[in-house]
Structure formats: C-alpha cells, structure tokens
C-alpha cells in the first residue's frame, strides 16, 4: 500500500506548504478537471510536466517517485490489458493516455494532501462553512486511528496468547477469526469514547455558539495568484477542448 503515501501529509517547510489550503484545493480540482477533459497523450503529458516542478517546490518529489514505483505494476497492468482488450481504433495510444490520466489525477490530489496538515484542512472546511462538529470529527478520526490500531494489535496478541489461531485455516475460518478481535475492540472503544466525551465536555465542547479559532486562515496575495492562474488554465483548456481538434497528435497505433 506504499502508493498511499502520496496522500499523506509530510511535515516540510516549502512555498507550496505555506499556501492557503483553499487555494491548493482549487488548484487540485482544476488540475483534476483538466486531466479528465483530455484523453490525448500530449495534453496529459503537459499537465504532468507542469505538476512535477510543483512537487519539487513542495520538496516531495522523492516521495512521489517512490509511490509511483509502488504503483508501477498496476500501471503496467492497465497499459497491457487496455491495449489488448480495448475496442478503440488505436489501442496503444488509448491505453497510454488512460495511464497518464490516472497518474495526473493522483498527482493533482497528492499535491494537496502532501502539503495540507489535517488541522489546516479542518480549519479550511470550517471557514468554508462546514459545521465545526463535522470538521472536528474528521480531525479526531486522524487523532485516534493510531491509538485504535495499537489497541487492535494488543487484543490480537492477547487472543493469540490464549490460543486463537488468527492466520490459519480456510478463508471462511479466517473471517470468523476476526470476531474475537472485533468484539473486544468495540467494547474498549465505547468505553474510551465515554472517557473522551467526559474530557471534552469538561472543556466546554460545543458550549458556545460563538466558538473562536486561534489560527484563522487568511488568503494572501500569493493565494490569489494561485487561484487566478488555476482559473485561467481552466478557461483556456475548456476553450481548447471545444474549438481546437487534437486527434491529429495521437499515435497511429
């Protein structure tokens, strides 16, 4: 699952990291739309050629390359099967374009998730009028996933010590083996949730309708520049799509 790393925040200090998450979200969405508009090799390559320097600026190129390497088997798979099975007139061209589109889509969103701290993300959502409780629930999920995972491992060890053979038997038996892990995990989690609720209640969670935020996000000049350029690109590509024929550039096979 190493390719998922490109969607995981990395603590860095870069120009891209310092941009407002809302500007980056807009940029990611535009770049995803553009990747979906085209199914020709050349424009998709251009998108990637634009995105890669941005990854460099975010000091995350190596991580991206590593994930792409992890993904390469899947990409080759898509390439080969599409070429063999596609009904398109020039199947190789078609499947290369499909593969490039997948890479471009992933890269667009990875640029967002690599550089936006979950706290910033929830703050951005709040300032985009999402209710605090929902945004907070999301950040709490991030907070407690590692704790829960640790607990699951502890329970697994405890059950193994009592003789439950977790990784033996046919698939059906293995699925049944999850029960002695899940049931205690749920019980423990409910108890933990109560205790967390007590602590949050004691600190006034949800008490004031006028909750304040210590770190509010504010749009700076550079964020407006990013939004403006993204918008320009969007308009331009839609224009190209509608009025300029591109089939002449495709591979003949």
């Amino acid at each position, binding site marked *: 699952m190493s390719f998922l790393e490109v969607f995981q925040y990395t603590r860095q200090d870069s120009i891209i990291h310092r941009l407002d998450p809302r500007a980056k979200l807009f940029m990611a969405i535009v770049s995803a739309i553009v990747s979906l508009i085209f199914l020709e090799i050349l424009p998709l390559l251009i998108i990637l050629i634009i995105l890669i320097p941005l990854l460099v600026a975010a000091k995350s190129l190596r991580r991206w390359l590593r994930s792409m390497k992890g993904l390469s088997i899947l990409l080759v798979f898509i390439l080969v099967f599409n070429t063999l099975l596609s009904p398109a007139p020039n199947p190789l061209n078609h499947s290369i374009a499909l593969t490039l589109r997948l890479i471009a889509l992933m890269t667009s969103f990875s640029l967002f998730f690599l550089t936006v701290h979950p706290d910033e993300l929830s703050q951005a959502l709040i300032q985009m009028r999402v209710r605090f409780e929902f945004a907070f629930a999301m950040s709490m999920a991030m907070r407690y996933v590692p704790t829960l995972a640790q607990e699951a491992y502890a329970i697994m060890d405890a059950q193994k010590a009592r003789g439950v053979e977790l990784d033996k038997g046919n698939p059906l038996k293995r699925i049944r083996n999850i029960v002695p892990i899940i049931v205690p995990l749920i019980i423990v989690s409910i108890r933990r949730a109560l205790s967390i609720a007590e602590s949050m*209640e004691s600190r006034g969670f949800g008490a004031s309708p006028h909750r304040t935020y210590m770190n509010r996000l504010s749009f700076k000049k550079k964020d407006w520049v990013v939004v403006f350029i993204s918008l320009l690109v969007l308009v331009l590509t839609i224009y190209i799509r509608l009025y300029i024929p591109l089939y002449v550039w495709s591979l003949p096979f």
Partner: protein
Amino acid sequence: MPLIEFQDFSFKYYGADFLALKKVNLTISEGEYVVITGPSGCGKTTLCRTINGLVPQFHRGYIAGNVLVDGKNTRDHTVAEMATIAGLVFQQPENQLVTLNVEKEIAFGPENLGVDPVEVRHRVEELISLLDLEHLRDKHPHEMSGGEQQRVAIASILALKPKIMVADEPTSNLDPKNAELILDIIAGLNKRDMTVILVEHRLDLVSKDASRIVLMNDGRIVADGTPRNILVKDLCQEIGVGVPKATLVYKSLKNRGIDLGSVPLTGEELATLVKEAS
C-alpha cells in the same frame, strides 16, 4: 465563604443498584491542597466528577443533597459553565488529548468558550513555557510519552484559568519519575494560590505538600484532617491506604514506648527526629 461545599450529597449512577456517594459532607476553602484517598470503588472519581458538574449533568442518576462550587449549585449549571471554575484532569492521558498537536490542545478549551483569539494565543504561549512543552509543540499525541501527555492535559485544563484543579489519579499510568514530575507541577500550582484536589494512592509522594487528607470508604468520608493527624490512625491500615514508610516506623516505635514527638511524613523528617531524640 467556602469554595466547595457538599451538603449531605448522595448519588447513585443510573442503572446501578447502590449509592456511589452516601451523604457526603465536605467543605473546602480557597488555597487548600486536599488529597483524597481510599480503596478502589469507594467513590473518589465520582466525588471529582461532582465538583465540575459532570455528576449530575453528564452522568445522570439519583441525587440527594446539594453541591455548591464557588457559590453555584451544580444541579443548575452546565459542565461548560463550571469549566472556568473547576478543571478536571483524568486518569488516562491519551483520552484527554483530542487534537493533533499541543498548541491546538491547549487552545481547545478557551476556543470552545469563545475566548478572543489573541488571548487564546497568549495563554497557549504562557502554558507552553510554564510546563516546558516547547519541544512537543507540533507533536501528535501518539508520539508523546504518558508523562508528556499528562503534562499537556494539565496545560489544556489550566488554559481555562480555573480556580480549582481536580486531578483524578493523574499519575497512576506513569513511571515513578514522571509521576513525581506531575505531582511537583500540581504542588507548584497550589503554591500559586490554586485550590487543588488530588486523588492519589502514593501518599508518601504527596503528604508533605498536602494541607489535608480526606479518607473515603464505601461512598463515605471516614476521616478528614491534616496528613499528620490522619496517617497515624489505625483506620488507615484497616482499609488499606498506602501510609508512608516513615509514618509507619513512627507508629511502631510509639507502640514500643518510644515517642518521637511529632509525626514524620518523609524519610528525611524521620531521620531528623531520630537524630534529635538520640
């Protein structure tokens, strides 16, 4: 006027079949350092929850009597209203850290109550330097040790500027060194005029700082007084309270006819008394 006043207070959790607190009468004034101790299940946690209104606002059940905290009856005020009067530190540190870094955690309480962002930032910086949390600033709670987590939890409570700090066995999941650090922080808060109520079993670590020990058993307060008066009682050993070794030595000496004059709470005090006597 006393800061906390329990008037014949009884409480039974919803669904339980016995009272967790039975006709408790207790008065605590400003600036006191009260240690609450007693065997497991005797109602210490319930007593703590009562002080900031979690009982009866969050944990429902049968109530009799009243609890007044800073003049407010806990029956009529929400937990959030009590938050700036009494802060509660719990046993498991990881369940008290609900955000992704230390700054956010400390800011959580004041933000919830709508404190001005500039003031919130001010409190955060103040507490980070007071509790020495600078190196943890950007860390995920999962990357901190239990002692560090508990320090952050204390900071996040202090951010609400409460008059009373209630700590329910804050050291029970910590190693001795970290436990001592946390207890030192709590004693330090008391020296800055904060009223402290601490549930603790390791009386050897806290009785030198405490101004008062409250002994509970089976939902009742069975003894209440200064550490030197309470710890020499036979009752302590009967219900199984961790009396400091030095005090035990004093007691056995006394039983054999050697009176040291005053009750020692630590090894050092005992050594001085023995030196004086010989």
